[in-house]
């Protein structure tokens, strides 16, 4: 498959802060590519440059054969954008919003109307189409926000954290929509800070942190980077000191890394069973009570932890 997007050393500085530090990656036609990274990693800044909204400080990207810096108008025709913040006219109905945005993409007449009907069906809001957006729940607004990005059937769809702050049901619906769109041929660049979403959706994942792409590949490729490692997660009580526990267990033989997230201590090890006794022993020594434990197979979270020493969600 040819590349629909090629990013070359793309960088963006705000005043004297560099949000994106020269990243490069490609997206193949037909795939779902996720940019996974914590808040402030530079995902939105990257999407803003790729959608021609922000001018890159340096570097370039080619989308559908057009440079984002030299031919932004042509790029805009190829892409659809679902911004992180809901960007709709709250005093207009869902249908009116879709019609207006369709017009901005050059649609009109009968084809616009039937396209709006299709999109309403797709986002499951046909019944509520005549209500003003301001009467909608957060999840419904998110769906309209997505619908706007689909109107002109873009070849490449940018979705910037489309599931933030909504109920599990709407989230499920959105993930299914993304998969469905992809099945019908749309290429998707999806950003998220939820490891599970990236895992469920994407063919390939780019992990971004502090404006740098620190890992790139399929999930298998990425998890292999962690080696055969497993993650042992210790849940402790609210009054216990996780830092003390992390420090204590670090000295146990077989523990590669121990990090703290909230009231959990995540331990990366080649074999969790081997270290269990040692870990429990250390905890008892310190008088820290472990409430429960989990053993996880290598996943993207572990990859991130492995690469940065931090958890994705802070």
């Amino acid at each position: 498959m040819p590349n629909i997007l090629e990013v070359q050393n793309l960088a963006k500085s705000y005043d004297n802060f560099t949000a994106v530090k020269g990243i490069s990656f490609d997206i193949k036609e037909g795939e779902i590519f996720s940019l996974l990274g914590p808040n402030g990693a530079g995902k939105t800044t990257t999407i803003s440059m790729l959608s021609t909204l922000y001018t890159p400080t340096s570097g370039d990207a080619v989308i559908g054969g057009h440079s984002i810096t030299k031919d932004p108008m042509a790029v805009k025709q190829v892409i659809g954008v679902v911004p992180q913040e809901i960007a709709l006219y709250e005093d207009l109905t869902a249908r009116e919003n879709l019609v207006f945005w369709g017009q901005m993409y050059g649609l009109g007449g009968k084809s616009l109307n039937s396209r709006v009907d299709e999109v309403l069906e797709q986002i499951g809001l046909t019944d509520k189409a005549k209500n003003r957006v301001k009467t909608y729940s957060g999840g419904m607004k998110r769906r309209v926000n997505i619908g706007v990005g689909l109107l002109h059937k873009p070849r490449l769809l940018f979705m910037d954290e489309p599931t933030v702050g909504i109920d599990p049901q709407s989230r499920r619906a959105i993930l299914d929509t993304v998969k469905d769109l992809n099945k019908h041929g749309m290429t998707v660049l999806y950003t998220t800070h939820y490891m599970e979403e990236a895992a469920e959706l994407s063919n390939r994942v780019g992990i971004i942190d502090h404006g740098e792409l620190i890992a790139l590949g399929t999930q298998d490729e990425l998890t292999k980077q962690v080696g055969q490692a497993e993650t042992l997660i210790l849940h402790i009580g609210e009054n216990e000191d996780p830092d003390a526990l992390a420090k204590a267990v670090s000295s146990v033989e077989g523990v590669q890394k121990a990090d703290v997230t909230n009231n959990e201590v995540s331990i990366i090890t080649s074999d969790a069973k081997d270290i269990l006794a040692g870990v429990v022993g250390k905890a008892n020594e310190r008088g820290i009570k472990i409430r429960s434990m989990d053993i996880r197979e290598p996943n993207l979270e572990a990859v991130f932890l492995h690469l940065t020493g931090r958890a994705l969600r802070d």
Partner: protein
Amino acid sequence: MLKTLLIGIKDLKILSRDRAALILILLAPFLLTIGMGLVTGRFSGDNSSGISDIPIVIVNLDNDSLGNALVDVFNSDDLAELVEPTFSVDPEAARLLVDEDEVAAAIIIPKGFTQSIIPQSGSAVSNEEIKIEFYANPSRPTSAGIVKSIVDGFLARLDEMQLGGMTSVSQLIISGRIAPQDANQVGEEMGKRLQNAAGNSNEATAITLNTSTSEGEAVEFDVLSFFAPGMALMFLMYTVSYGGRSILAEKSEGTLPRLLVSPTNTIQVLGGKVFGIFLTGAAQMLILIGASSLFFRLNWGNAFGVVLLTLAAVFGATGWGMLITALARTPAQVGSVGSAVMLIFAMLGGSFIQTDNMPAFVQTFGKITPNAWAMNGFTTLALGGTLTPLSTPIVALLTMGISLLLLSAVLFGKKNLVQK
């Protein structure tokens, strides 16, 4: 081009659903105009044109220089055809003539009137206010209005112009201290105060309308020809800052960036916003003009001229709306600066008071306001003027609009519309 129009129409649609904004741009000016009309007796029938020989009765108890001067005014040849004064020495009898519909109004000049204004040496300066009483016949509002305007004109010449309490109502509305739906009542009270002030030379000038009656022609004097455009133009300034504000609001709400990632360029987007402001302002003015013609039977004059002047005024005002927006950082700033500008322009531009009596520098400065030029044009039209004298205000308003839009385009260019 098409997208520009579509963006403008979208803005008009959104505004039409904003009840608070509709109250301010349509209801408030309308109710204020009604309030003014009610007290000035404008709505009590008597709409005959071709008025002459208005019967009035004058009671001159002053018998001093100023009282006599006013009597001379009514006896002058200039007014011979317009008014038919009779004289009396008994205020009660004079009022009775009004009550019995024998005359259109009674003018009672109280004893000591001259002294209260020009204190004579030797006599104690009295702090007591001595007012001319203007006792109007409610069944002859137009005639009474004309006579009153003559008295007002006389008083205006007596005293330096001072801003009366006229600005207060609008100020109160804007600062939220009175609800727009109460504007009518407040306007009415204010009007009453103005009428009481007929004898108070300081305040009377606040509604002085220098209707030219010197030729003794039949003049249809209608106070609403002054108040209706005045109020409409004042709230037009609100509309344009509302529109400008929506540019910054769209920026912070993300719809402006979204427009810019669609295949629409900055010029189309900004052009669309400007068009939206213009469209909204034009709709507001035409609705207000239409409503006052319909409900108050107010004659604005030559219809073609009214439309042309209105569009030019809206264009000039749109320029100001864009400039305010280009200089502001947040939607809230546009709102507060816009409200201040609306009031200042209304005062400088003669939306409350005829500027003829203001100091020269105020009049000169007032020329920066669309209000002043448009008031000038609307007055011309209401007095039966044709298109020729209208060209000056129209050209001035168009020039104003073009220069301000260019200036704001430069400022917008420097300012990054995309990033926060």
